[in-house]
C-alpha cells in the first residue's frame, strides 16, 4: 500500500501527531543499527498508549498491512528494517516508568523506556536492572525483549529472558494478553519465554515487568595480560573450573588492544597478544577473597602480568578501553562489520586462530573483542565500502566465521538476533523441519504472518537458494548435521 493510502486509513483511528508520512521524516526510520540494509517504510505510527497500539494493529489486520515493531532502532541485525508496503510501529513515545515495587524488587515499564533509564530510576533504592547491552544508554526494553539482548554481565546475571518476569502483549488478533506472572511462575505453556527473542514476530509488547537486583556492595576488576590468545582462553576455563563466576570476563586481542589504547589511553599493553578484564562483585569480603584467587589462577595460566585496579577510578579506566573498543576500531577503518557468534569456551583458541587465517585469506583485518566468559565472539571486520566488492567480501567472511561457530558446537547469534542479516545462516543451523516448526509456532500468534514478515526465520525456498550457493564439491556445508 502507498504512503497516502496508509495515511488515510490510519488517520481515521489515530490522531495526526501519531503518524509520520512525509518522506524526509520517514528516512529517519529506514534502517536500524545495521545501516547496510535500508528500506523506506510506507508509514510510521508512533502510538502514545496501548489504545493506539491496538487501534493500529486492528487496521493492519483488517487490511493485511505488514507491521514492523521498532524500539530505539539500535538493533544490529536489521530486525527493524521497514517493509515498503507496511508500517513501522515505533514504541519510542511509550517510555514511562509505571510502577516500582520495592518490596518485590520489580518495575513495571512501558516498552520504549531505555534500558539504562530503568537502572537510573531505581538507583536511589539500591536496585538495578542487570542486562546491560553496550547500547544501553539508547536501546529500549521493548527492543531488548524482542532480541533477548545480553551484555557484559550475562554469565552471572543472565540474558533478558532471565530478567523479565511478565509482559503485556497486544496481539494482531486484537487481544491484550499477559504472559508470565508477578508471582514468579505461571500456569500453562511458557509463552513468556517464547515471546522473548521472537524478533517482533509474535506480538507487540506494550508493558514489561522486570526484575530488579540489589546493587552489589562492591565491584572490582583485574586485568590479565597474555602473550598468546590460547593461554588467555585457557585461563578463562580455569577460572570457571575453580568455582568462581565473575560478573563479567572480557577478552580483547592485539588489534583491538592497540585500537582501544590509541583511542582512550586506558593503560593497555600494546604488545600483548590478548588481555582479559575480569570483574568480580559481591560483598567486600567475598570480592577480596576472589580477587586473590583469580590473580593466582591467571598467574598459573601463564599471564605475563596481572593488574588489580586499585580504586574506582582505575576500574573505570580499565573498562573505558573495552567499552570504547567499537568506536576505537572504527577509527582504524572507514567501515567495520560486527559479527556475533557464540562458541563453547574450549574452542576459543581454535576459532580465533581460524579467524586469523580467514582474515589473511580475504585480505581484511579483523579485531576481536568478546564476552569470553560465555564464549560470545564479536569479531570486527574492517573494510572500506567505497572499494568495489569489499562489502560483499566482508559479508562472505562474516558468514564463514558464523559457520565456524556452528561447526564447533556454537550458534550464529549470541545476542544480536537474526533479523535480515543472518537469515541465510539459519539454513545451516536448523533443519527444514525445525524451521517449518518455527513458522508454525509463529502462526499460533500471528496467523497471517503480518508481524515483521520476512525476518529471523527463512522459508524453505530461501534456504534451497542459500544452500545452492554454498555447495562445495557437491556437498552442502556440514553434512553431519541432520537436515531432512
Amino acid at each position, binding site marked *: 500500500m502507498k504512503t497516502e493510502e496508509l495515511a488515510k486509513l490510519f488517520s481515521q483511528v489515530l490522531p495526526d501527531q501519531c503518524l509520520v508520512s512525509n518522506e524526509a521524516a520517514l528516512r529517519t526510520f529506514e534502517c536500524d543499527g545495521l545501516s547496510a540494509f535500508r528500506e523506506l517504510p510506507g508509514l510510521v505510527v508512533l502510538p502514545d498508549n496501548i489504545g493506539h497500539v491496538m487501534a493500529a494493529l486492528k487496521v493492519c489486520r483488517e487490511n493485511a498491512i505488514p507491521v514492523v515493531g521498532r524500539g530505539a532502532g539500535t538493533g544490529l541485525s536489521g530486525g527493524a528494517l521497514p517493509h515498503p508496503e507496511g508500517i513501522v510501529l515505533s514504541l519510542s513515545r511509550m517510555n514511562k516508568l509505571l510502577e516500582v515495587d520495592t518490596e518485590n524488587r520489580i518495575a513495571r515499564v512501558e516498552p520504549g523506556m531505555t534500558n539504562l533509564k530503568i537502572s537510573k530510576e531505581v538507583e536511589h533504592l539500591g536496585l538495578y536492572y542487570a542486562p546491560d547491552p553496550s547500547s544501553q544508554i539508547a536501546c529500549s526494553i521493548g527492543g531488548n525483549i524482542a532480541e533477548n539482548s*545480553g551484555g557484559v554481565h550475562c554469565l552471572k546475571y543472565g540474558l533478558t529472558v532471565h530478567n523479565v518476569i511478565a509482559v503485556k502483549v497486544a496481539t494482531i488478533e486484537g487481544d491484550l494478553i499477559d504472559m508470565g506472572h508477578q508471582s514468579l511462575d505461571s*500456569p500453562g505453556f511458557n509463552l513468556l519465554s517464547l515471546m522473548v527473542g521472537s524478533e517482533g514476530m509474535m506480538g507487540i509488547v506494550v508493558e514489561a515487568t522486570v526484575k530488579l537486583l540489589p*546493587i552489589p556492595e562492591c565491584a572490582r576488576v583485574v586485568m590479565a595480560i597474555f602473550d598468546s590468545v590460547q593461554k588467555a582462553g585457557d585461563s578463562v576455563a580455569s577460572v570457571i573450573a575453580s568455582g568462581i563466576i565473575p560478573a563479567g570476563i572480557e577478552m580483547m586481542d592485539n588489534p583491538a588492544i592497540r585500537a582501544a589504547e590509541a583511542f582512550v589511553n586506558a593503560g593497555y599493553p600494546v604488545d600483548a597478544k590478548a588481555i582479559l578484564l575480569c570483574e568480580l562483585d*559481591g*560483598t567486600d569480603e567475598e570480592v577480596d577473597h576472589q580477587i586473590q584467587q583469580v590473580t593466582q589462577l591467571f598467574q598459573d595460566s601463564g599471564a605475563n602480568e596481572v593488574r588489580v585496579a586499585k580504586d574506582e577510578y582505575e576500574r573505570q579506566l580499565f573498562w573505558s578501553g573495552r567499552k570504547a573498543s567499537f568506536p576505537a576500531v572504527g577509527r582504524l577503518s572507514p567501515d567495520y562489520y560486527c559479527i556475533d557468534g557464540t562458541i563453547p569456551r574450549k574452542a576459543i583458541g581454535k576459532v580465533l586462530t581460524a579467524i586469523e587465517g580467514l582474515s589473511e585469506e580475504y585480505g581484511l583485518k579483523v579485531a576481536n573483542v568478546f564476552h569470553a566468559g560465555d564464549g560470545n565472539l564479536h569479531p570486527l571486520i574492517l573494510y572500506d565500502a567505497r572499494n568495489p566488492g569489499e562489502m560483499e567480501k566482508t559479508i562472505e567472511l562474516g558468514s564463514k566465521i558464523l559457520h565456524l561457530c556452528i561447526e564447533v558446537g556454537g550458534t550464529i*547469534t549470541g545476542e544480536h538476533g537474526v533479523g535480515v542479516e543472518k537469515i541465510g545462516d539459519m539454513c545451516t543451523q536448523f533443519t527444514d523441519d525445525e*524451521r517449518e516448526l518455527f513458522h508454525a509456532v509463529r502462526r499460533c500468534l500471528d496467523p497471517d504472518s503480518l508481524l515483521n514478515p520476512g525476518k529471523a526465520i527463512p522459508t524453505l525456498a530461501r534456504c534451497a537458494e542459500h544452500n545452492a550457493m554454498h555447495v562445495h564439491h557437491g556437498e552442502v556445508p556440514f553434512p553431519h548435521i541432520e537436515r531432512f
Partner: protein
Amino acid sequence: MQETDYSALKAELYSARQTKQPLAIEGGGTRKFYGREIVGKSLSLSDYQGIVEYNPTELVVTVKAGTTIDSLSETLHSNQQMLGFEPPNCLPESTVGGTLALGLSGSTRPYRGNVQDFVLGVRLLTGDGRNMRFGGQVIKNVAGFDVSRLVVGSLGCLGIVLEVSFKVIPKPECEWTLNKEIPDVDQAILEFNALSGKPYPITAAAWCNKLAHIRLSGSEAGVKSAAQIIGGSINENDPIWEQINTHSHPFFKQGQKIIKVFQKPSASVIASHKPVLVDWGGALRWYREEVDETELQLGLKEQGGWLERFCGADRTQEVFSPLHPATMRIKQRLKDVFDPDRILNPGRMYSEL
C-alpha cells in the same frame, strides 16, 4: 559423541498415531499423582539414560531424559557443580525428563532461577514423529524461537523431550542457614522480602512452625559477613532444605490434599487458615486440605496469583487455575502444531490441551 538411537521410541509413537492411541509419557513414574488424570498407554523413557556430553569448564551438561536426577547430581557433585534450580527430588527414580515436564524448581527459585532459566537446549520428538533440536549447548544463543524453554512445564503435552542441555553452576564453597523464631507468617514474609532487597548471598528462605530459615551460599568470607548482619542462630546443615526437596518434611506426610499457591513474594497471606509452609522467600505458599478453597480463590482474584491442586484433588476436574480465553486459544494452537493428533499426555494439564 555417539548419537543415540531413538528408533524404538519413534516406532511406538508411529503405531500410536496410526490407532490414535493416547500415550502417557513416563520418566521414573514418581509423580503420577500430579496434574489431571492420566490417560493412555504408558510410554517409558527409562531406557534412555546417561550423560551425552559434559565439560565442567563449559558449565554445560547434556543428558538423556530418562537419567535420574540423583545420578546426574552425583556426576555434577564430583566436579563440584550442581543444577542451579535444585530440582525437587521426591524419590530416587525421579528423572530429568519428568522434572523438565513438570517444570519443578526447588527452594532456590527466586534467587537463582527456575528450570527454564537453566535450560539451554532440548532434543524433542513431536507428536507427529519429528526429531528436532532447539537451543544449543552455549549460554548465549538467540537463533530461532525459544522452543526449548517453551516445553519446560508443559507436562509432556508438546512432545517427548529426549535430551536436555542445562547450564550448571559451581557448588558454593560455604552454605549456612540462619534460623530465626518468627511466630507470625506475615512477619516472616516481610522479613524475607526486606532481606532480598539487600546484596546478601541469600539462596533460599522458608518458614514453617514459627521458624524462619534463611540460607546463605557463597564464599566463606561472604557468608560469614552476611550472617553477622542478618542475625539468628547459625545452622551449618539445616535439614529443612533436604526435607522440602525430597518431600520428606512432615508437611507432606500429613493430610492427603495439598494446594500450592503462587503469589507475589511480598503479598500478605489470604485465607483465615494460614499456609503451613512458606517457601521461595514468600512466593510459594503450601496449604493443606483444611483450607477453604473458595476463600483462597477469591483472595487470589483480588490480590493476584494462582493455585495448583498439587495432590489429592478430583483429577477429572481442572487442577490448575483457569487461563484467559485468548491465552488458551494460543496454547491450543501450539498443541496442534506439536501434537496434531493430540495423543501426547492429552488433558493431563488442562482438559483442552
